[in-house]
């Protein structure tokens, strides 16, 4: 396998792996998310949250994937990038690391959004407006 072929395989493989990770995370959290957001009160808002959740995770992974660049001081053009196999491996691992990081951050951020939603729902039902 030449370095250029490795670049193609690793780049698109990392993208596919990241998308798979986001979808798997969505699948694992789908049922708990539905349990947390379903209900009469604020149901429209809950539906928005449930629909936005997969897109939110996939976009986070996409941001992590795109945050890594192959260019640096030693690798200023395409030939120098494809000529350095270690650099290609390093960048692939860096992309995987960034995608995992962004995905974890997105789940935690969604947790904060869910707190705000639950607070609004509890206030509504506690005041008897549900």
């Amino acid at each position: 396998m030449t370095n250029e072929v490795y670049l193609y395989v690793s780049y698109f493989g990392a993208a596919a792996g990241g998308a798979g990770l986001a979808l798997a995370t969505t699948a694992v959290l789908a049922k708990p998310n539905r349990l947390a957001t379903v209900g009469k009160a604020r149901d429209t808002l809950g539906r928005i949250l449930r629909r936005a959740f997969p897109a939110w995770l996939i976009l986070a992974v996409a941001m992590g994937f795109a945050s890594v660049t192959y260019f640096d001081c030693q690798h200023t053009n395409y030939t120098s990038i494809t000529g350095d196999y270690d650099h290609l491996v390093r960048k692939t691992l860096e992309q995987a690391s960034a995608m995992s990081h962004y995905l974890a951050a997105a789940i935690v951020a969604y947790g904060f959004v869910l707190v705000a939603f639950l607070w609004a729902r509890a206030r509504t039902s506690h005041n008897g407006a549900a």
Partner: protein
Amino acid sequence: MECVLAWLVLAALSAVLVVVVVGLVMRPMRMLLTVNSYLSPVALFYVRAFVIVMALAGLAGTLGNTAPCAEQAAGKNFMQWVWWVAEGLRPVSWAVSGFLLVYALLLTILYGVLGRYHDK
């Protein structure tokens, strides 16, 4: 060969770190999230999300370390490999502790907001 072995040791230690942290926090978290009927429907989400977040943090920290290439690995003795693994644990510890801190803050806010309600 030593590169792969060192990287596997680092990955195993990272996994142990994540499992220990999750094991320590899981039970009290479940108890916290079942104190009233406002919190109990969300317990499953926050518990599963915590496990996933910790696993992803460990993965991100581990993948951030690349094994030394063949030229760098040549001539390294045992203690140099130990130092390499110890150095590799730094980003893993940072990621796990950072996310743990933020998650603790999240649970504190969640409990502060919803824990004050009492079931009738």
